[in-house]
């Protein structure tokens, strides 16, 4: 019995159906963590990408080094670091927030590269044409470069969103009650791990197949010529 739902162990199928409502409660946490983490990753990624493009090496090199370091070390250890170290400095966050920040931080390393590649893919001539038209740096970014970068960047960001979704079970290690955590609790109480864990796998599979189809549609439907910001 969990969250008012009791399980029915008579057959594997009835067991699977009876625990579905419990797992769906965990799914909400999984999706919320993914969504919050993704917002953090998108915003932090822009910050890293802009700092890396800054004219001063005093800024761009340390930022590039930090991003590389975040990208090449495991999410699980970064999560432990934030979870156990932040409180030592008086920053006490709920586990869910720490988890979303860890996810967002790790993926900001990837998104910063997506933004960078999206901007680099736009031909030099666009910069030169903007300069010839006497557009300011800010106008060039807003009206020329970013609108053209969006159709290149969005599908790549979508792929990272799916990867993030699949990494959220890592958050269960710091007591966040996501789908995997609930499946393990059900397993501990019933000594039946096969059905709950298989169900979690199945739910992830359905989610990622839907997301991948969505990304393919997005890629197909975005205008190549760019999306104006105004």
């Amino acid at each position, binding site marked *: 019995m969990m969250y008012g739902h009791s399980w029915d162990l008579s057959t594997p199928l009835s067991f699977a159906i009876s625990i579905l409502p419990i797992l769906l409660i965990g799914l909400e946490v999984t999706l919320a963590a993914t969504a919050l983490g993704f917002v953090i990753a998108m915003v932090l990624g822009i910050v890293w990408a802009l700092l890396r493009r800054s004219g001063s090496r005093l800024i761009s090199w340390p930022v590039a080094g930090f991003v590389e*370091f975040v990208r*090449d*070390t*495991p*999410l*699980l*250890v*970064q999560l*432990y*670091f934030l979870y*156990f*170290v932040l409180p*030592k400095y008086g920053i006490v966050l709920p586990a869910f927030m720490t988890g979303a920040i860890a996810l967002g931080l790790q993926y900001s390393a990837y998104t910063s590269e997506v933004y960078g590649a999206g901007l680099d893919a736009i031909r030099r001539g666009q910069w030169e044409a903007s300069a010839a038209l006497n557009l300011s740096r800010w106008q060039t970014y807003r009206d020329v470069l970013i609108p053209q970068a969006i159709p290149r960047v969005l599908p790549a960001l979508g792929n990272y969103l799916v990867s993030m979704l*699949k*990494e*959220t*079970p*890592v958050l*269960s*290690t710091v007591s966040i009650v996501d789908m*995997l955590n609930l499946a*393990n609790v059900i*397993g501990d109480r019933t000594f*039946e*791990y*096969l059905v709950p*864990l*298989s169900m*979690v*796998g199945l739910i*992830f*599979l359905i989610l*990622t*197949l839907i997301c991948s189809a969505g990304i393919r549609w997005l890629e197909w439907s975005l205008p190549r010529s760019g999306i104006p910001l105004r």
Partner: protein
Amino acid sequence: MMHALNYLGPLLKGAEITAIIAVASTALGAVLAFAAGIARASGGWLLAGIAIIYVEIFRGTSLLVQLFWLYYALPLLGFSMDPIMTGIIGLALNIGAYGAEVVRGAILAVPNDQHEAARALNLPRRHTLWRIVLPQAVVEMMPPFANLAVQNLKDTALVSMITITDLTFRAQELRNLTLDSVPIYIETLLLYFAVALVVMGVMRWLESRLRHGAAIPRVRMA
């Protein structure tokens, strides 16, 4: 409280397990990647179908779920392995599925005239694949393979959840013992970063070797 550098001893012991698991799972994953990638790109419908199901299942679900499934659920079906084997096989199945897509993409990217030329020379299919297509495709696979190898190294941290005493497990153990989180986790992250740099260096060296080998075809005179 120990001196901060005293943590390095136990952490290095864990790093050794991490390295062993990373190397073994990357090697096994590469085999799986080639098998599934070749089956999808140029196998019959049955082999291609099996490869698609394998790739979709392991790319579509979460690695930690897969590891728990292998560790907790599989023994209930009467099939149990020790944790290290479970970790290696779980990681290999996962990274192999991602690698299979790389292999398939690289094979399909080999220009069609190479196939036509091989056919014009009356080479058998197997010969075309192994001597003409793969040597060219392998070079293109190396940069994405390097990313996957680093990804796999990072993923090995998850085997600490199935009781393997890897680097992450040792870090947790030390923290529970001393509560001295800051130096322990910083040293752990730096060790992972160092191993990742080695992995990237090795993959870059391999790529340059392969590129060199592919650029100079060996011509055997009759």
